[in-house]
């Protein structure tokens, strides 16, 4: 394919990505060094409501002749980053309490970072192991049952994450059915939504429930391509089932384990819908949730675009760091392909 055709074909997609991904990224970068504010003025006004009249002196936005607010961007350097990373506070916390995680987590960003990373990395091994076990089990199932089992397995994966979280939340919240059951068995009062750790456990469980099917599908497909002759040969050599799995099957599907890991890291790092679904914002905080929270209108009807941008930049840096090993591998492979 010649260069001109290539360009014509990729142009729409390229323009899309430049305009709606690259430029926003630049805007976010730019905005993270600014405060976006309404231009304010001090006014004195008399206000009467059902509880009486009073005169108040307030700072209110200046309205132009059309009655609209006008906004300005003020350059503030690293101020937004400082407001999020709070190095000064961090320093004093470390001096007072040593390197205690629970103390450091009183700063929102570190709390969000801690949870995001836990969520990303703790669920990973479970997803991989459960996915593989499930794939092995289904592989050994009677053919007639395989279809229905795959069908059921796909459901948790395909369901809307917010709704999936809700459906699990209802089993546990208040006197939900599983809570009642546990209370009956353990004969004590249980409140899953009262403690940060129990909610966190539930959110982690949800993620494993939601993503295991994905790992399963990939591994199951890969198991179909395992070389049967090699397994037979190993059997003749006296390798037991576990050894066959360890030395033949797992190396065979290794590239796919890497693939599942990559996708899982990307997706789990985005944790957000789970916090909405479990209404866990009082207890947990994730990086993407933090940005969302700054972007939401607060009680006075304004957004904190500056801090949202700074959090976004930090979030992005985080995922790039996580992906560096993977990216390096892609580069190497591409280079080898070329040579």
């Amino acid at each position, binding site marked *: 394919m010649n260069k001109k055709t290539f360009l014509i074909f990729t142009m729409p997609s390229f323009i899309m990505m430049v305009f709606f991904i690259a430029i926003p990224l630049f805007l976010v970068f730019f905005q993270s060094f600014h405060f976006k504010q309404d231009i304010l003025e001090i006014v004195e006004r008399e206000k009467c409501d059902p509880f009486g009249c009073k005169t108040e002196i307030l700072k209110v936005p200046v309205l132009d002749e059309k009655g609209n607010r006008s906004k300005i961007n003020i350059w503030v350097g690293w101020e937004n980053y400082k407001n999020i990373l709070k190095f000064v506070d961090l320093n004093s916390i470390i001096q007072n309490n040593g390197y205690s995680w629970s103390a450091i987590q009183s700063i929102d960003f570190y709390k969000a970072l801690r949870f995001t990373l836990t969520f990303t990395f703790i669920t990973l091994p479970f997803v991989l192991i459960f996915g593989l076990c499930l794939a092995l089990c289904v592989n050994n199932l009677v053919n007639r049952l395989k279809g229905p089992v795959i069908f059921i*397995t796909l459901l948790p994966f395909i369901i809307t994450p917010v709704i999936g979280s809700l*459906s699990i939340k209802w089993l546990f919240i208040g006197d939900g059915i599983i809570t009642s059951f546990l209370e009956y068995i353990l004969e004590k009062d249980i409140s899953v939504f009262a403690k940060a750790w129990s909610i966190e456990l539930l959110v982690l469980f949800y993620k494993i429930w939601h993503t295991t099917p994905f790992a399963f599908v990939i591994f199951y497909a890969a198991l179909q391509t395992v070389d049967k002759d090699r397994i037979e040969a190993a059997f003749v050599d006296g390798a037991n089932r576990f050894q066959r799995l360890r030395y033949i099957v797992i190396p065979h599907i290794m590239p796919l384990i890497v693939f599942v890991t990559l996708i899982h890291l990307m997706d789990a790092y985005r944790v957000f819908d789970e916090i909405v679904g479990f209404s866990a914002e009082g207890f947990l905080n994730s990086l993407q949730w933090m940005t969302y929270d700054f972007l939401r209108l607060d009680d006075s009807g304004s957004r904190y675009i500056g801090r949202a941008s700074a959090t976004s930049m930090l979030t992005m840096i985080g995922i790039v760091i996580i992906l560096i090993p993977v990216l390096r591998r*892609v580069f190497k492979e591409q280079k080898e392909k070329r040579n």
Partner: protein
Amino acid sequence: MESKLFNLSLTLKVIVGISIMLWTFIALFPLLWVLIMSIKLPVDSFAANPLNVIIGPNTLKQVGGLSFINLMFLCLSIYIYFKFFKSRENYFLKINNLTNNKLISFLLLILIFIALFLALFLFLNTHIANFLNNFFEYVPFLKILSKPLIGFTTKHFIAVWAENEFYKQFLNTAFVTLGVVTISLTVGTLAGYALSRSNTMIAFWLLVAALVFRALPHSVLVTGYLELFIDYGLYGKKIAVIILLVAINQPFTIWMLRSFFMNIPQDLDDAAQIDGCNSFQAFWMIIMPLMWPGVITTGLFSFLLAYNDYLVCALLLDGQSQTMVPAIMQYFNMETTMTDLVESIAAAASITLPLFILVMFFQKQIVSGLTQGSVKG
């Protein structure tokens, strides 16, 4: 030897059986429970005793329920439906050889399935079953068959879809997903094709950039555009959401479509070009007809992205242009009574139905899509 090698010992068989049973239970239980809660009156939905939730004594007393006959009909309909599906399943399996002409008959088949679904569940299970219920009521001894056993009410579903006009949100979602799927696929197929046929440095960098973009948390992109969209009057406009979701979806789309295009031998292009086609003709007349499975699969995943999105829709859309997922969360904020709460559960249950049907029809495509991306990715 083959059989001895691959057959499991009894212990392993038991372990496999138990694990599968446990997993299917865990996978299904939360979803089924939502469904059960949504067809009961609030008192039963939130009863502490699981049996009360399933049988629903209060619902039985106040509204009535399903009798043995109803249950029989329900099982029968499900059986017929799946039987019919099985008999036509080859059609869905062979979707891989789908040509443009067959696409129409394929769509027709889906229509038949929907018609059958409606006939079975809206006619057989309601009118005929009720008629039989009334009939057996007067037959001694057989009366027991028409006695309601399990509490059942569609009240909440009716409240959600009719009184609270949830169909408006459904139409919004339909518009947004349709927009995202068509634009994503149009733009994505072109790029995916070009990328699969090119080995230049630009192609490589484009793919790497797409991979990095794929990893970006969506909030980053929303942050960049939220203020601009609002300043230019795009707040509450579905088109703004479509544009953003297409952009978010683009990296994934081109990677997946590229890997499908890689499966189509380059010789075909060359042959077409020798026959005098230009690149675009070759793409449209020779390659595209072979690409329908890939396009359908990628379309499914684009659909899921748009259908399931909360973040973008919640920030950019307003109450009236809201799609279903944020609207359901809003439902929970609107609720001030127990009935409202069960209604929101019914809303949640009804938006999973399309996904359920999707998996049923497109299981093979979803599986192939997931594996395709991994093998070539």
